[in-house]
């Protein structure tokens, strides 16, 4: 397989605030630099793109030195937090915006679907809009005509095809729009988060179509989504963009794991926002000051093999006098968030004054949970379990990832379909079987 897209040192600079009204003096400075053959002076002061931190410069690198390659026929995923630069990257790939530096080389026709229904005119009928939208996406009239029936069929809105689209429900609108896009036949299809609308049946249909496009017709698909499950099912390789730079790339499964850690990269200390009622609850009398998940060698890790020992190294601080102190650590199920297992220890029975602090280590030996992702739950309370003297960290850290590893002793019979969470030691003895006559003849 050869490369169909090569992105080299791609960077994009944006100016914040007063976009588009550069001052005349800046324009002149830029011109002067160009006359002397120097680089644009304003390019140097760009900062990395991090939306939550207030920067000092007005210029920001929305993308900085992005390098990657996409192979022919590959389904390539791009993920990242809001504002990480995904859309900017897609805009450059689809020629809507120009890069500030770097190049993108593309082999073959590109069609991009940054939004479904671009250019749909509300007053026109579904039929007219199929032709209009198709033309906007780069199809020719005969091409659309030949695919018209199949488009209508795929969209499932045949009954309304001669109704103006302003009368459509938003779901129908998206269905029709995606149906047109799905019938594009470019060598490279770029798709941005378009599955957000539409019911689950249609989402499945879309994902299936994209898979078909790549597998049966050998086209390349670049897919951006926040739906990690969709990425997991569809893409072979995935790229994570964070703050305008590449954070990780490679095999989807591995990259998604890294992404999970990135998303929860929250520093837990005694100053972490306590009012966040979802992930951290408490009134501030006792507080976790750090939580580390380690292996027995003391390395930070969130991913373990079956049979490993997990060490939780936890330090705490007391802000108001409490009587006694206890700690609980629980593993939750990823989907239903039920508590699968909980350990509870008493750290001390005695009174602790404000300003006291301490550190504990708790080991989970020889972990024997089926492979999967398990969110973690930590709770610090006094001996009376008084709700006022409590600090809870609920799924704020990266989830614990358990992998099969080399220990196959407890392997289950159908991989990928975990039934339950624990590998229970058990055995079966067949005492007696009575086959009926017909069956025994057949045997």
């Amino acid at each position, binding site marked *: 397989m050869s490369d169909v897209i090569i992105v080299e040192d791609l960077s994009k600079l944006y100016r914040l605030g007063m976009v588009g009204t550069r001052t005349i003096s800046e324009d002149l400075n830029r011109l002067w630099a160009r006359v002397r053959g120097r680089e644009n002076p304003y390019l140097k002061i760009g900062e990395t793109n991090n939306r939550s931190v207030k920067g000092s410069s007005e210029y920001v690198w929305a993308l900085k030195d992005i390098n990657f390659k996409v192979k022919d026929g590959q389904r390539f995923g791009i993920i990242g937090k809001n504002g990480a630069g995904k859309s900017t990257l897609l805009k450059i790939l689809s020629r*809507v915006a120009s*890069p500030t*530096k770097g190049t993108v*080389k593309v*082999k073959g026709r590109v069609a991009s679907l940054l939004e479904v229904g671009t250019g749909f005119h509300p007053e026109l009928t579904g039929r007219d809009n199929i032709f209009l939208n198709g033309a906007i996406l780069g199809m020719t009239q005969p091409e659309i005509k030949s695919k018209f029936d199949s488009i209508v069929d795929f969209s499932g809105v045949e009954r309304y095809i001669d109704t103006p689209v302003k009368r459509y429900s938003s779901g129908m609108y998206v269905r029709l729009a995606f149906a047109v896009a799905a019938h594009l036949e470019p060598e490279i299809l770029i798709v941005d988060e378009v599955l957000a609308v539409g019911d689950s049946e249609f989402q499945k249909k879309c994902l299936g179509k994209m898979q078909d496009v790549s597998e049966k017709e050998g086209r390349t698909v670049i897919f951006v989504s926040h739906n990690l499950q969709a990425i997991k099912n569809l893409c072979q390789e995935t790229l994570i963009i964070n703050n305008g730079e590449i954070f990780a790339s490679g095999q989807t499964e591995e990259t998604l794991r890294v992404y999970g850690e990135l998303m929860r990269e929250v520093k837990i200390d005694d100053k972490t926002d306590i009012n966040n009622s979802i992930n951290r609850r408490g009134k501030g009398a006792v507080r976790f000051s750090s939580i580390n998940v380690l292996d027995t060698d003391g390395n930070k890790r969130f991913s373990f093999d079956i049979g490993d020992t997990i060490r939780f190294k936890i330090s705490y601080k007391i802000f108001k006098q409490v009587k006694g102190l206890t700690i609980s650590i629980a593993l939750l199920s990823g989907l239903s968030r039920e508590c699968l297992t909980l350990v509870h220890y008493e750290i001390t029975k005695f009174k602790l004054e404000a300003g006291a602090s301490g550190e504990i280590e708790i080991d989970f030996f020889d972990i024997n949970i089926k492979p999967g992702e398990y969110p973690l739950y930590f709770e610090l309370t006094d001996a009376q379990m008084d709700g006022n003297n409590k600090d809870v960290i609920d799924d704020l850290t990266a989830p614990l990832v358990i992998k099969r590893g080399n220990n196959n002793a407890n392997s289950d019979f159908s991989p990928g379909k975990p039934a339950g969470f624990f590998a229970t030691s058990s055995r079966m003895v067949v005492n007696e079987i009575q086959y009926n006559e017909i069956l025994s003849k057949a045997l």
Partner: protein
Amino acid sequence: MSKLSTESEWTLEIKPVTGWFNFHLKDIWRYRDLLFMFVRRDFVAVYKQTILGPFWFFLQPILTTITFTIVFGNIAKIPTDGIPPILFYMSGIVCWSYFSDCLTRTSSTFVANANIFGKVYFPRLITPLSNIISLLMKFSIQMLLLVCFLIYYKLNGSGVNPNITILLTPFLILLMAGLGLGFGIIVSSLTTKYRDLTFLVGFGVQLLMYATPVIYPLSALPDKYKWIVLANPMTSIIDTFRYAFLGAGTFSPENLIYSTVFMVITLAIGIVIFNRVEKTFMDTV
């Protein structure tokens, strides 16, 4: 594997914007179907949910003509070179409104279409071109109306003399379209940065109409001001148009050549600027 592939194999290279002259004229040809679809959309969508529908195409010039006849003809008593005022004003209005519609419509290309332009690539020049063509349909319908009036007056024996210069009409239309498009895309390119121009355009077009012989004949002008009106490239176009259809006014090839040169230069500047802005405007609009 990629090392084996040579540079020429890449169908597209996306680079930072440099240079002013790399046009994608081939792309425009490839997207000609889109041009057609846009024209169709404009035509179908404009009068949807109106009671009179396409009849508005007729109503607009008729009402304006009546107003002009009353205000400028009957009240202000501006001469019309001996032509029935209705014909005089209507011919001026039909031409002028084509030019001014072209200009104002194309001048909002980037701002009005930022939504589409931000999501999908196609040669941006398609949009103003489609405007010009769909306005041409409106113009043709109004021309038809003018011709009907012309025949009516001719049969009634008024002094109107259509002559052979009528054959210049397609060329005149081309000139008007070119001028409207040229000015329009220059303005639209500049409005991506300086929104003030949007306000200036509506006002400027109105003022420009008074510097064009729409409501008065060239002959009624004092010599003092004539040069101002003659410097306006629209003057000779409208004047020639009236001469061809009504047989009044003047026909001066030199002035027409001046308008042609003016149009070519404006359009060329417009296309160069537009082409440059279409690549960067997403960051500024």
